[in-house]
């Protein structure tokens, strides 16, 4: 089938066959129509014969009657030749039609009947105005010769009637078969429309270039004309009309086939409506309207919001003025319009205010650092939507930057951890061998002094590495915080106990002030101890011997404030901000051991637990203030 649809010869054959089948189907249909009209589908042939004979008989009767008046009642007698032909035509040798024409009185005025055996009789009545204007009734008794010895219409009719009667079901069958074949061929031709032997894709031909609606309209108009012609022809049921009708029907069927195939080709190509005049006209107007609208839109989009507002206000004012002028002297009308106008305006203004409020909330959240907040722009309009989207983009960009930052910080921590891990292995060897060297029986003097430096500095290096790892972890929040309810007083007592001896050996006196009641905070005890450890360690290292150290615990407005106070041994000519920076130490000479990370670590750890660490320097008085929220 696929191959056949591409074959040109097959297509031509199909078109020819289609024409033939259409002719056969239409001819058959007309035939069946005639046959059913003339009772051919009755059980016997007699009824059909009677019907057809009646038609012929009436025709003969008409001729007889009107010719009679033309010939015999006419003042101008026709020629003898004419009369002879008339009489010859109706002589029993030439016709099987037999008649008696009777006048009003029942006298036979004309006859060719001489007592032959007959098979069919009819009587017709005619009215004729005579010279005086009165009506006269004539009667024609018609008969058909039983033997049909003459070869006239009856004889040929008899022959056709018998043939058609015996063939009636064959004709029906042929018609049906032709119909089916015609439909199949039509389908096949639809499939093959647009196909060519040498091409895979659908190829349109010349007909397909005609605008489809014009093509379709043309075929339809021709159809209407053809139907009209049929209508007039159908009453003249002669053989010629049947042939003309059949040919016309066939030609029209071909035309319709072309239309169908053209439609099929266009449909297969897609967008069959594109090549129509109507579509082109619509498209033309659509384009004009679209251009107008898009230029208005462009204009509206590209004027500033101020001009938009001005336009809207001017429009509103103009509308109001118009209404006032229109309803002048009709106060109740004006009031009504005023009322409905406000009814519309108030929700609009409220709506605008709600949007502004939403935007404000969003910007406030973003400003306060909630970068995950998104303004819900789904129900916003105009400039508000744009603004909301801008805000969202800002917060998105910022949270992306923060994420990026976090990632790089984590990477840094990992790097520091890994590097310090690698440093630790050689450092272990150094510490061990320095220690071994120190155990050797060294001569006093420079060598012993040098080894002493090595011992001191290698242990400092060890501390520095540990602090570095911890500082980087604490500052990037890479530490797991297990916050539990912690009694801060107990922790303070524990820390004081831990440092009691070191303080005493540094000639420092610790004075603790804490309230009687138990004060609880949410903190990770271990991390908080590390903070206290660092701070106490600093106090021991940097305090002036012989002074007092204060460790105060106060509860102020739902906050617990812990203050470490001590007197610095060296003058503190450095700001508290600088002290909190990494690697900055109170003694600029850096003579004491320490990494300079202690305070920085303490601050990070306190912040990780949700607290605050501040420094205060007042002359030689050094204060560290910790603040936490209390819990019950």
């Amino acid at each position: 089938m696929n191959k056949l649809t591409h074959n040109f010869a097959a297509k031509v054959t199909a078109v020819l066959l289609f024409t033939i089948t259409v002719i056969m189907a239409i001819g058959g249909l007309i035939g069946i129509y005639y046959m059913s009209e003339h009772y051919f589908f009755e059980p016997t042939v007699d009824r059909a014969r009677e019907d057809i004979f009646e038609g012929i008989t009436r025709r003969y009767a008409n001729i007889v009657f009107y010719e009679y008046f033309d010939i015999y009642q006419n003042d101008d007698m026709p020629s003898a030749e004419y009369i002879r032909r008339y009489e010859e035509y109706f002589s029993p040798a030439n016709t099987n039609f037999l008649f008696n024409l009777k006048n009003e009185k029942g006298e036979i005025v004309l006859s060719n009947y001489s007592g032959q055996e007959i098979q069919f009789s009819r009587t017709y009545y005619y009215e004729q105005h005579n010279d005086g204007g009165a009506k006269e009734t004539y009667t024609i008794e018609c008969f058909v010769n039983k033997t049909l010895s003459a070869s006239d219409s009856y004889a040929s009719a008899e022959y056709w009637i018998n043939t058609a009667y015996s063939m009636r079901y064959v004709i029906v069958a042929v018609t049906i078969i032709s119909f089916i074949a015609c439909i199949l061929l039509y389908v096949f031709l639809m499939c093959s429309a647009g196909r060519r032997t040498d091409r895979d894709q659908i190829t349109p031909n010349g007909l397909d270039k005609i605008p489809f609606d014009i093509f379709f309209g043309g075929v339809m108009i021709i159809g209407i004309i053809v139907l009209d012609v049929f209508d007039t022809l159908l009453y003249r049921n002669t053989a010629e009309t049947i042939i003309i009708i059949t040919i016309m029907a066939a030609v029209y069927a071909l035309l319709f086939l072309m239309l169908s195939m053209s439609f099929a080709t266009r449909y297969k190509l897609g967008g069959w409506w594109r090549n129509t005049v109507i579509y082109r006209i619509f498209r033309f107007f659509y384009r004009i309207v679209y251009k107008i609208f898009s230029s208005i839109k462009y204009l509206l989009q590209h004027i500033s919001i101020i001009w938009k507002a001005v336009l809207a206000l001017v429009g509103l004012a103009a509308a109001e003025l118009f209404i006032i002028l229109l309803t002048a002297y009709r106060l109740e009308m004006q009031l009504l319009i005023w009322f409905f106008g406000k009814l519309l305006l108030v929700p609009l203004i409220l709506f605008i205010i709600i949007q502004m409020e939403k935007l404000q909330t969003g910007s406030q959240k973003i400003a306060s650092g909630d970068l995950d907040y998104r303004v819900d722009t789904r129900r916003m309009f105009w400039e508000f939507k744009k603004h909301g989207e801008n805000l969202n983009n800002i917060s998105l960009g910022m949270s992306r930057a923060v994420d990026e930052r976090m990632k790089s910080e984590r990477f840094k921590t990992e790097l520091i951890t890994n590097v310090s891990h690698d440093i630790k292995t050689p450092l272990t060897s150094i510490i061990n061998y320095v220690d071994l060297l120190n155990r050797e029986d060294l001569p006093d003097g420079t060598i012993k002094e040098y080894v002493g430096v090595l011992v001191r500095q290698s242990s400092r290096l060890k501390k520095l590495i540990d602090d570095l790892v911890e500082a980087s972890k604490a500052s990037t929040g890479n530490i797991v915080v297990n916050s539990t309810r912690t009694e801060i007083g107990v922790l303070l007592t524990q820390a004081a106990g831990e440092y009691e001896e070191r303080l005493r050996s540094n000639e420092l006196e610790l004075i603790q002030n804490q309230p009687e009641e138990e004060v609880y905070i949410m903190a990770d005890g271990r991390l908080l101890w590390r903070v206290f450890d660092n701070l106490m360690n600093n106090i021991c290292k940097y305090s002036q011997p012989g002074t007092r150290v204060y460790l105060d615990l106060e509860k102020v407005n739902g906050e617990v404030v812990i203050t470490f106070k001590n007197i610095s041994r060296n003058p503190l000519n450095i700001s508290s901000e600088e002290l909190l920076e990494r690697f900055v130490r109170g003694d600029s000479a850096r003579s004491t051991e320490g990494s300079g990370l202690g305070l920085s670590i303490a601050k990070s750890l306190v912040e990780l637990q949700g607290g605050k660490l501040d420094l205060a320097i007042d002359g030689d008085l050094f204060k560290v203030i910790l603040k936490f929220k209390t819990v019950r």
Partner: protein
Amino acid sequence: MYNVLICDDEKDIVSALKIYLSSENYNTYEAYTGRQAIEIIKNNDIHLILLDIMMPEMDGITAMVKIREEYNIPIILLTAKSEDTDKVLGLNIGADDYITKPFNPMEVLARVKSQLRRYMHLGGGKVKTGRITIGGIELDDKSKTVTLDGEPVSLTPKEYEILKLLMEHPGQVFSPRDIYKRVWQEAPYGSESTVAVHIRHLREKLEINPAEPRYLKVVWGQGYKIEQGEEV
């Protein structure tokens, strides 16, 4: 003469440890990978292993799992990993103790000595009446004496009372106030720091590294407790 196996891929560290251990009259064996360590343990009578975690061929953790399948020898992990999770993993898998790098040689010696004493002398863990044993600490309430890994520890009466209180309730946290009330038998009135000082002294006497105690633990912000020792 005890046989100690030192296993570390860093040759310098092995030699240094060897010098220290030899000076304390230990017989040493050296291995540089986990595989070598297992070989040596099979062919020799080893009493203690110092095992590094990060080693080529077979790491310390894998080697330890293999060793623990057959032997009950004390294992001390040497590790540059100071992460808490690593320590917990090592101890859970079967280490008796751990030392983080860079280590103090004296601490290594002390821990080796402690493990060996417990392994060689107190391995049976005999239970005697009137005695409380937690890890290497043994408290005899009749003679009011305390021994650590079999060696006597001299404690003051208050220190002894505190230790007894904690050892009688292993795992339970006592606040400084509770301890003061129970030991001094009077109201504290701000004297809780005395308890903290005593605990500090106790830790110095009982722990090899008081900053990282094995038994006498500080629960910061809550109190103190004693635990069965980390090798549990």
